[in-house]
Structure formats: C-alpha cells, structure tokens
C-alpha cells in the first residue's frame, strides 16, 4: 500500500515540475518592459480606488461552517457504505438516526434563512 503512495508522490513531483517549467518558460521568453501603469491592478480602466483587499460578507463564513459540518457527515457515510451489505437493516436504521438528528439542524438553518443568498 505504501508503494501506491510513493507512486502518487512521483506523480506529484513530476506534475509540479511541469507546472514550474511552464511558468519558467513564460518568464524566459516573455518581454519584460515593466511600467507603473502596467503594474496597476485592473479596475475597468479607472485608477484603483482604496485597498484591493476588503472585508467580506459573513455569508461566506456561514457557508464554510455549514460545509464543514456536512462534510464530516459525508466522511461518516463512506466506511458505512463500504460494509453496508454486511451491516444490513441495522446499519440502515442507525444511519437514518444519525442523519435524522442532523436533518433537524438542516431544517433549522433553512428556516432561519442561512441558506438564502441576497
């Protein structure tokens, strides 16, 4: 099994090398005539106003939290799915209880408007 990971490591190394070479080729052959105007951030042709980074809406944070919770739920699904045939009805009922509890939270989030996007 460890060998499989080394194979992935080899692929990772080679893929990174290819990407780095691509960027290097661009740097090597591209013209380099830098100017202040060119280095400005693009803002539809206007002079940029204010800082480029700004605080973002809390919605994104909420989406990320909800994502983590459901992601963990999916992670629990996977080993269960692999041995489901051996577990039978008992396994199904337990998973329904597990999801049922989480579903309460899902409905709460929905009713509270956490899934709305304005």
């Amino acid at each position, binding site marked *: 099994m460890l060998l499989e990971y080394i194979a992935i490591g080899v692929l990772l190394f080679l893929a990174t090398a290819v990407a780095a070479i691509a960027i290097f080729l661009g740097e090597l052959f591209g013209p380099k005539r830098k100017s202040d105007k060119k280095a400005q951030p693009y803002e539809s042709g206007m002079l940029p106003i204010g800082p480029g980074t700004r605080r*973002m809406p809390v*919605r994104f944070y909420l989406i990320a939290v909800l994502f*983590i919770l459901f992601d963990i739920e999916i*992670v629990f699904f996977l080993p269960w799915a692999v*041995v489901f045939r051996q577990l039978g009805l008992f396994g199904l009922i337990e998973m329904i209880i597990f999801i049922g509890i989480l579903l309460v939270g899902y409905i709460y989030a929905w009713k509270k408007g956490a899934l709305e996007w304005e």
Partner: protein
Amino acid sequence: MDASQIIFGLTALLIIFSALRVVTTRNMVHAALWLIVTLLGVTVLYALLQANFLAVVQVVVYVGAIAILFIFAIMLTRREMRDGGPQLNKGWPLAALISLAVFGGLLALLYNAPVSERLAASLEGQDTLGALGQALVSPDAYVLPFEVASVLLLAALIGAVYVALNKKQESDK
C-alpha cells in the same frame, strides 16, 4: 535506516518548521498557509502508518474544510492582513513551561509505550476500512460515540447559524 524512516524524518522536520512559521509570521494569510503545510505533513505521517482512511480524511476535513474556514475567517475579520502588535504577551514564560512539560510527558510516554516499526507492517493486507465501517455501527464498539457525534454536529450547526445571522442583524441596524 530504511526509506520510510527517511521520509518520516523529512516530513517531521517540515511539520515542525511550518508549525513554527504559523506562529512567527506576521501575515495572517501566510500563517494560514503554513498551517495547511503542517496539516499536509500530518497526512504524510498517516500514510506512512498505513492509515489510508485517516490520511485521506485528514485532507478532506482539515485541509479541505477547516483551513478554508480559517482563511474565510481571516478575510472576514480584518481589512489589514498584517499584524503589527507584539508577538509575545505577558503569559509567555508560563506557556513555554507548560508546553515543555507536555513535551516531556509525551516523550516519557513514547519511551515506555510498546511502539515499534512492526505496528505499521502488521496492518499490511488487512481490510482496515471494512473493520472501521463495522466498528462505527456495531453496538459493542463505537455506535454510541457515532450517534453522539451527530448531536455534536447539530449543536455546532445551530450555534453557527445563530451567531452568524444575529451578527448580520446588528450590522444592518
């Protein structure tokens, strides 16, 4: 020393280095990125221990979800991504003492524990994934923690929705 030990040594060095960078760098986004490097290093350790499922779950949950949350949280809370304040506060000698004590305790534990390289080899060819799936729902193993985990997730979900949406109403006023 065989290949897996060399890989372990290099990974451990990378983990320690990037963990140090997490606390020393002044740029918040860079700190989050170094944290991701640390987490990926832990993934390699799991893979070395033949813990396939844990290795991949480490990436899915920690790198793919929790670190994303960190980055979002940083972008949410501050406009300036740089931290100009002092990097140590008053309690640092105490904190250093406690971490040293924990480190010593772990070291003592490891010296006495029956950990050897045979542990990883003994798992070769076993269906650890199936065993994990069985253990999760079998009544004499982890079924109770499994169901309690869902209650925990529920609490986290409701808490997150409550906090985030109330904050929004305040900013509207």
